[in-house]
């Protein structure tokens, strides 16, 4: 028999629990307490309202370029909601809602996007990695965290975020392969928002789903309605439980949509139609979840005002922060400052002092003549 058909298991589950009209599949409804449902909704709303506020702050020049999350609140919150504080969250660059939930204070995020180094500094007990820019490179780190957990026997699960475009990068495939071979406790969450800047998913891959890419690595993959927070939560909770029980990694593909710009430096009208955006606006994750809560009588009055007030107070604190101190750029280059950085820092301190002096003040101290410096700026 020279030629025969091998039959690798090949099927991908799709999960949807609450559709865009608010219809519920009660048999699949996950068990979440009323208080938790309200907490979840509040976190999604906070993500949305802060996102909108941040776009305005960016337009006013008060924060720099950032990647808005509008439309992806259910994908992010449904997934991180299933983690414990002691688990790890590894973001890409579009997880503001998830980061807030994990404990980043609003003003710290604003400081980050205003370029302050301390904005990227997680609290000592916070198990989150910083935002990372090179697409998919955070995924091997996440596997490393999971490997370390396995190495030490820690009861820890790692959840890593990335986009649809990231699934074309080598690091995505390498990370899934390593996770499969080592069977480490990790959950990969792909936010398939249909676009990688101007490149649509159809040009990114010929695969029918992104979830099925897990199968090549011997891992389960599941596709969920990423605008349905109940479905995202149910799939994530199962995957996290499985990882925690030592039953290995899972890839979750959240089918969602980026309603806003790629980043504040982007103009999406150049590459996608208004009709497409409107079609997805009808599937808004917040509207649908609000309707579900309304039916349960769980939607508190005045929640939006409360959330906006929280944001406004944080913006005020952010605005009160002093300008970033240039000398801090030398603080965390090496674990111990090498002499050449100490020398450069001192030189900069002098320069800043004399730059700030009034014009009739002392002239700039000029450096010693060539070839006669007592030390090199590179002396170590």
């Amino acid at each position: 028999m020279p030629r025969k058909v091998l039959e690798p298991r090949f099927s991908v589950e799709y999960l949807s629990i609450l559709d865009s009209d608010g219809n519920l599949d009660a048999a699949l409804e996950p068990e979440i307490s009323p208080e938790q449902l309200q907490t979840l909704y509040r976190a999604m709303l906070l993500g949305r309202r802060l996102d909108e506020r941040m776009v305005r702050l960016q337009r006013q020049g008060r924060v720099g370029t950032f990647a808005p999350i509008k439309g992806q609140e259910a994908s992010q919150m449904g997934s991180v909601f299933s983690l414990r504080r002691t688990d790890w969250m590894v973001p890409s660059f579009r997880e503001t809602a998830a980061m807030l939930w994990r404990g980043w204070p609003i003003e710290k995020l604003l400081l980050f996007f205003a370029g302050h180094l301390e904005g990227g500094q997680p609290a000592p007990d916070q198990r989150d990695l910083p935002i990372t820019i090179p697409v998919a490179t955070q995924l091997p780190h996440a596997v490393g965290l999971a490997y370390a957990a396995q190495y030490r026997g820690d009861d820890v699960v790692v959840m890593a975020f990335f986009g649809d475009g990231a699934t074309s990068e080598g690091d995505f495939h390498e990370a899934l392969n390593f996770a499969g071979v080592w069977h480490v406790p990790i959950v990969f969450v792909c936010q398939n928002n249909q676009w990688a800047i101007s490149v649509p998913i159809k040009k990114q891959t010929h695969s029918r789903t992104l979830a099925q890419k897990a199968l090549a690595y011997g891992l389960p993959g599941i596709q969920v309605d990423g605008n349905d927070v109940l479905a995202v939560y149910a799939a994530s909770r199962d995957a996290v439980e499985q990882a925690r029980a030592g039953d290995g990694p899972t890839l979750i593909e959240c089918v969602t949509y980026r309603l806003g710009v790629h980043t504040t430096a982007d103009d999406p009208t150049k590459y996608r139609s208004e009709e497409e955006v409107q079609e997805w606006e009808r599937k808004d994750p917040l509207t649908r979840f609000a309707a579900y809560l309304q039916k349960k009588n769980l939607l508190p009055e005045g929640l939006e005002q409360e959330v906006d007030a929280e944001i406004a107070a944080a913006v005020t604190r952010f605005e009160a922060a002093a300008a970033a101190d240039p000398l801090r750029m030398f603080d965390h280059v090496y674990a111990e400052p090498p002499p050449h950085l100490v020398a450069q820092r001192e030189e900069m301190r002098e320069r800043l002092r004399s730059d700030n002096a009034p014009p009739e003040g002392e002239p700039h101290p000029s450096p010693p003549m060539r070839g006669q410096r007592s030390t090199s700026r590179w002396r170590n």
Partner: protein
Amino acid sequence: MAVMTYREALNVALREEMRRDPRVFVIGEEVGLYEGAYKVTQGLLKEFGPQRVVDTPIAESGFTGVGIGAAMVGLRPVVEMMTFNFAMLALDQIVNSAAKMYYMSGGQYNIPIVIRGPGGPAHQLAAQHSQSMEVYFYHVPGLKVVRPSTPMDAKGLLKSAIRDDNPVIFIESETLYAVKGEVPDDPEFIIPLGQAVVRREGTDVTVIAYMGMMYRALEAAEELAKEGISVEIVDPRTLRPMDTETIIGSVRKTHRAVVVEAGAGFAGMGSEISASITECAFDDLDAPIERVTGENAPMPYARNLERAKTPSKEKIVDAVRRVCHAQGS
């Protein structure tokens, strides 16, 4: 003191550090059962088991990234590159993650990782397999870069690198693995990173060289001694942070300098060291600094071409004669 090969010295360093600190583990291609492409990890799998001596799929970016992740939470990975030529596949992980994470996290996550393996010109390994790779790393703030020339340095510096809290690029050499030398037995023997060493004392000219080039410079010095030229040889050992103090001190004494590097020259270590000498000791110089580098072409495969491309003893001798205004014999 025991006499051992450079390879054995590295192996002992790994073994001692793994015994000393349970957070240290080795990860890479062929490091376990096969004991390393160049047998540096011999016996480690047997002593420490597969959790601490990890054979990986062939994916340099992936296992370097895994090492970085594990380092963030306090493990101390030693990542083996089969050769540093293949570290190019992990360049983003090294430059954008290993070197930056401590900075970007405001000091929350330092990366105590060592990335080690052979690099530099070897014997007939050709264009993609025989390059001086340190140039790609020493430019990057946040990385330390080590090039150990002797068995003693191999042991002492690797142990320091493993104990260091920063990412360290540690580039060995195929051509040195079999070199023998004295190595202290003391498991607490280390050589701090960032300290150059004077390999040979002299009074007329300072030659700065490391790895295979350091040995070639020693041969050149022997020959030049016969002509009455006394050569001092400084081996930087750590390229970043670099001990410019020892280099400058030597130049202030001899008033002449020749920098030797095996790589292709342009914007290489020789440029950096020459610039430092000019900044700090211009008025001490009695002659322009000379650089002796490999030719600016990819490494050829043929043995005679390879020899012609790489700096030779004769080229070093000629450069020294020029800066000493000597005619030669």
